[in-house]
């Protein structure tokens, strides 16, 4: 086989025009699913993480212990393990959840665990004088937390938050294991049906279209936020 023929074969296998035409609509609707899942996971995860970090700052021992346990366990377990337990295990207890719901719950919880740690690290890194300045000017604990401490903690955590949100949103691909019709699931079944590798190329392209701008945005943010307080 000479080189041009090899190249042509490569193009046919990975960039087959007919296959692209046939599966593009399915793939586009799968991209919408991936985007939509990713968006609600990020919003929920970051919000829950923020609330948990605030609760932890109250320094009530049983709250602290529960939050640390939650954050540690969810950071130590592979998300796929939790997904399988939720999806295959809970029906045994009569709790039925759809694939997308399981995916959302598990990934939002994992993101919340990481966000809690990021916000908490920011809060503890804050010089004590910032708290004292707030309290000395007659502001309550909650007012100082919200107006003085949190904005600074969030700013310190922005690069890690963006990176972590990205990493976890990418895990929506795990939905393919439990029948969520997201990008990877749709293209895998297209690959199986068509017997062509082209749907996989399309999947890779779809993910790049979604996440490459996000990665570049993260890089830009990292540079912007690298100033010292």
């Amino acid at each position, binding site marked *: 086989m000479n080189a041009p023929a090899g190249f042509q074969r490569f193009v046919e296998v990975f960039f087959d025009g007919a296959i692209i035409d046939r599966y593009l609509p399915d793939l586009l609707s799968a991209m919408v699913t991936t985007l939509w899942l990713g968006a609600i996971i990020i919003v929920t995860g970051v919000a829950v993480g923020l609330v948990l970090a605030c609760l932890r700052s109250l320094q009530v021992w049983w709250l602290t212990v529960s939050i640390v346990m939650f954050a540690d366990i969810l950071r130590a377990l592979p998300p796929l393990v939790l997904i399988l337990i939720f999806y295959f295990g809970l029906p045994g207890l009569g709790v039925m959840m759809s694939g997308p719901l399981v995916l959302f719950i598990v990934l939002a919880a994992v993101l919340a665990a990481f966000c809690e740690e990021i916000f908490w690290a920011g809060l503890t890194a804050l010089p004590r004088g910032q708290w004292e300045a707030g309290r000395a000017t*007659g502001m309550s604990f909650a007012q100082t937390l919200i107006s003085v401490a949190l904005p*600074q903690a969030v700013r310190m955590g922005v690069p890690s938050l963006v990176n972590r949100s990205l990493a976890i949103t990418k895990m929506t691909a795990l939905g393919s294991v439990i029948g969520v019709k997201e990008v990877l699931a749709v293209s895998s079944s297209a690959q199986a049906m068509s017997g062509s590798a082209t749907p996989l190329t399309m999947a890779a392209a779809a993910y790049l279209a979604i996440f490459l701008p996000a990665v570049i945005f993260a890089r830009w943010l990292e540079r912007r936020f690298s100033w010292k307080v």
Partner: protein
Amino acid sequence: MAQTPMLEITALEKRFGTVEVLRSINLKVGRGELVFVIGPSGSGKSTMLRCCNRLEEPTSGSIFIDGRNIVNCPAAELNRLRLQTGMVFQGFHLYPHMSVVRNVMLAQIKALKRNKVTARTRAMDMLDRVGLAHKADAMPSELSGGQQQRVAIARALALNPKVMLFDEPTSALDPELVGSVLKVMKDLRAEGMTMLVVSHEMAFAREAADRVVFMDGGVVVEQGPPEAIFGNPQHDRTRAFLSRVSHHAGAE
């Protein structure tokens, strides 16, 4: 002094675990008086100052501000009581994420519930008073240390405190920036503000203080007018400290 003093500390004790930091401190600051606290580091002077707005919890004793004991006041009222004392820290502690004028407005809005317009007007007045109205929209990181400290003073003044507490306000400043902060303090005194100052600026104490208090080892060793303390100290510890300080100052 016929009136009740603005600030009165009686039998104040403070222990960290088993370590006694303050022992039976008694101190009065009259209305419009500027009282200077000097003493070696570790003498407990900053701790005493921080007890006056309960950033430090006293172990026992009383602290009256304008006749009201703040030591046994319930936590719910503490935030309101803290408005009566303005605190200026060694490290300024401006909020780095807010502009200068927002720094001065924040507690007015949150703690005093002033509306934004009133708070901004008041903030601009206070910034003008410390000579920094033109920096209102700058971020703290764009200011020199001396300017930051003057903003911190404005932030405290904006809340109409009855007493100003200064915790080594010039110790973190480059020598050439100290003067601008001391000038603001001198202006405040001229306007009749009651002030309790912990500081090493002996020349300023000699010139501006109504009374000087010497602390060592957690107790008030002696107090009196600056001429008496600097000119004719009664205790060996005072004499030793002053000679060490003046020697040090001479060596510079």
